[in-house]
């Protein structure tokens, strides 16, 4: 069955550095992958969608890569700021039904000033 793993539950980095979060998946070849940000006490907020035929996508300081051979997506935040501290979730269409998303457990990022 489909499995999604996000690296380390928590990641601490120094302000100004690049944060790199990993999303690995198995037993599936999704047509796309999404990344969301979730702040405490709030709902997830959509950040980026990358399709299987796209290697890389950028939005301001965010960059997402999608390696369908490695079955992995990397999410980068460059020049990180304390305001980037949040939990980041990757999501893939469900292998059984593309109509629904399966979310990873998330990585809690803390950017230290």
């Amino acid at each position, binding site marked *: 069955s489909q499995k999604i793993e996000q690296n380390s539950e928590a990641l601490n980095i120094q302000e100004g550095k690049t944060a790199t979060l990993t999303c690995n998946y198995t037993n599936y070849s999704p*047509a*796309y992958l*999404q990344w969301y940000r979730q702040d405490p*006490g*709030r*709902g*997830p*907020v*959509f950040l980026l*969608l990358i399709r299987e035929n796209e290697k890389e996508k950028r939005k301001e300081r965010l960059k997402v890569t999608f390696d369908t051979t490695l079955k992995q997506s990397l999410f980068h935040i460059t020049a990180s700021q304390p305001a980037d501290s949040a*939990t980041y*979730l990757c999501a893939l*269409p*469900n292998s059984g*039904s*593309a*109509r*629904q*998303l*399966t*979310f990873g*457990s*998330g990585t809690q990022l803390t950017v230290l000033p």
Partner: protein
Amino acid sequence: DTAVSQTPKYLVTQMGNDKSIKCEQNLGHDTMYWYKQDSKKFLKIMFSYNNKELIINETVPNRFSPKSPDKAHLNLHINSLELGDSAVYFCASSQKVAGDEQFFGPGTRLTVL
């Protein structure tokens, strides 16, 4: 001008009671969802409606009954509440059934005593 709103924000109730959570979206989207996020932060799909029709019904106890009076509203009614129902429930919407970003509400924290 909130995009996806839920009421109430917090719900504390006794085991065995029946309660409802309401959700409204003003984005003109065709598809709405209910998710459950447990204490370990896993976000799991419960139901999805497209144009008032149920299209996803995950393995959820039949004590949970969604109702969509119109495209902009998706309510969740829970009968005979149990301790294990304690979680944060998120409503979400998207323009299309699949492959689209989802917009989440602020969540309803349900505590069953």
